[in-house]
């Protein structure tokens, strides 16, 4: 059992990792064909992952409803919402509009999903303002530099700011193109090296936490 749960996945990871890392350097059509087949499989598995996500959700909330845990009413609402949307989706064949006329599925999408998601994202604008008010204080030299840069970029990125202080536009462009780009590159290099190192460790079996379970 250990062999199937541990050794086989590690072997598969090793072989496929090396083969597909090497694939990048092999331009031959046979190599491209192999890549095409595997990415088709990835798409198929990606489709199944959706099913997996939905079924885990169903299971978790079914347990909550059965045990009548605190907040089980919300789990019931989630069930109704999910099953209702799936049923309506099947009924309209997954189409939001047919010949320009909105379907029931389209109604759910446009009048429930879009406003709900938009609202969550819109809250960010208010939270940014309250966070800025609370935190953008020149407590130190570095904080003061951060504050000045933030003010310049905020002014330079809106027409009113450029109208009031014309140079703010050029300054904010310089901050974004020079200071910001160079620092982002540095962070990107560091994170990319980390990702490459992790990939190498996973391929060669040094890192096994993705398999689940604790240390051996």
């Amino acid at each position, binding site marked *: 059992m250990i062999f199937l749960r541990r050794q086989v996945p590690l072997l598969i990871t090793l072989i496929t990792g090396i083969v597909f890392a090497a694939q990048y*350097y092999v331009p031959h059509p046979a190599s491209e064909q192999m890549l095409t087949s595997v990415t088709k499989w990835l798409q198929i598995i990606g489709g199944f992952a959706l099913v997996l996500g939905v079924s885990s959700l169903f299971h978790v909330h079914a347990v909550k409803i059965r045990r009548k845990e605190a907040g089980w009413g919300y789990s019931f609402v989630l069930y109704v919402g999910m099953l209702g949307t799936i049923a309506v989706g099947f009924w309209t064949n997954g189409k939001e509009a047919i010949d320009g006329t909105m379907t029931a599925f389209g109604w759910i999408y446009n009048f429930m999903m879009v406003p709900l998601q938009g609202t969550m994202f819109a809250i960010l604008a208010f939270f940014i303002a309250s966070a800025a008010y609370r935190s953008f204080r020149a407590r130190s030299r570095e904080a003061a530099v951060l504050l000045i840069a933030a003010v310049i970029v905020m002014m330079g990125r809106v027409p009113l700011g450029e109208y009031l202080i014309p140079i703010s536009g050029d300054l904010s462009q310089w901050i974004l193109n020079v200071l910001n780009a160079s620092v982002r590159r540095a962070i990107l290099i*560091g994170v990319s*090296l980390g990702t490459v190192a992790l990939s190498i460790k996973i391929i060669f079996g040094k890192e096994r936490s*993705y398999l689940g379970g604790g240390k051996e």
Partner: protein
Amino acid sequence: MKRETLDVKRKNARSARGTSLLVAGILYLSVSPAFAQTALAPPQDVRVFDTPSDGGGSLTVIWSPASYDSAAAKYQILFSEGTTAPDPAAMKVVAEFPANQRYVRESKWPWWTRPATGEQHQFTLKSGKGIELKNGNSYSITVAAVLNDDRVIAAPVQAMPEPNWINWNQMNNLILALLFGGIVFYAIGTARKREIFLRRIPGLDAVDEAIGRATELGKPILYLTGAHDMSDPSTIAAAVILGRVAKRTAAYETDLLVPHRDPITMAVCQEITKQAYLEAGKPDLYKDDSNFFITSDQFSYTAAVDGIMLRKKPAANFFMGHYFAEALLLTETGASTGAIQIAGTDSDHQLPFFVTTCDYTLIGEELYAASAYLSREPVQVGTLRGQDIGKALILCVLGVGTILATLGVMLDAQWPKLFLDFFRDVK
């Protein structure tokens, strides 16, 4: 009699002078660029071969520059199928461009695969736009030069496109990747044999302080592991730090809440938490549902966690891992409950939000370093050391490369490109 002879002699001398002048004039005109007619010679040294390091279906043509190369003159690429030598005049024109364009130096060949010197002309034929190049089939290609109404054609050359097994243009990438991999494995090997120094990460003191505060207030601790799954380095680091946090909460008998977005991450974290409680000597205090799955949808998860924060009012919130737009929604809600907040993330888009709303933030690799520092596992510590060496190498390359590139421009020299090309397009 004497006078007549003298006149004839004078006449002869005059005509000889005139003839010499005429000959000199003709000779002068023939070499003078302003007035002479440019002699249109067929393109020289025409070579056609299978484009190297590709998947086939392409041929490359190289030929020498000519004295008439200018915007006024044109080159034409002529093409025909088959192995028999065709009549050049009947070949199909597949491309035409000014004669002062299409040089080897303009294309992206690295120096170790460049097929000719930079001043040679080059054109790459690919399938499409009226021609189809099939692998294994022979084709005849040639180059014609056109100037005003004159047209001269070089002798056709046969070539066959073939797919290649190795992309030599990317060899620098492979060598550097293997080098970096070697450095990481060497560092892991060194970490197994001896202790490698890691400086203490200041954020870890903040972690201990936050746990202590929650215990004093008798409130739970909320710990988030981020938006990605267990194949992401930030989630692995978050899981390791959770082990330490869980050990402290077990020792202080504080409640721990760990809502998850990914079932596999949840399973791993459950094991880690259980192990931590065992090591703290409090296995009976471990609760299975301290790690629970909410949903994988971004804003649904955020709304659920915000609800937990507002209802349960945890005293300490930990945001470890990778986050997207939900970062500020989580941290600002947590700040409104008065909780102490520690974040650790490699998502550079969200760093400003974490820095402004959290009491302490582990930035980028500090998160990986913190997990290595805590676990002291040779693999983690060795990887960190390997990455540090990699970064040191990149810094040196940046420094040396900048100096060489500047020298190359100042001295108008090509030799710095030998170094610069090796690190170009490394990805």
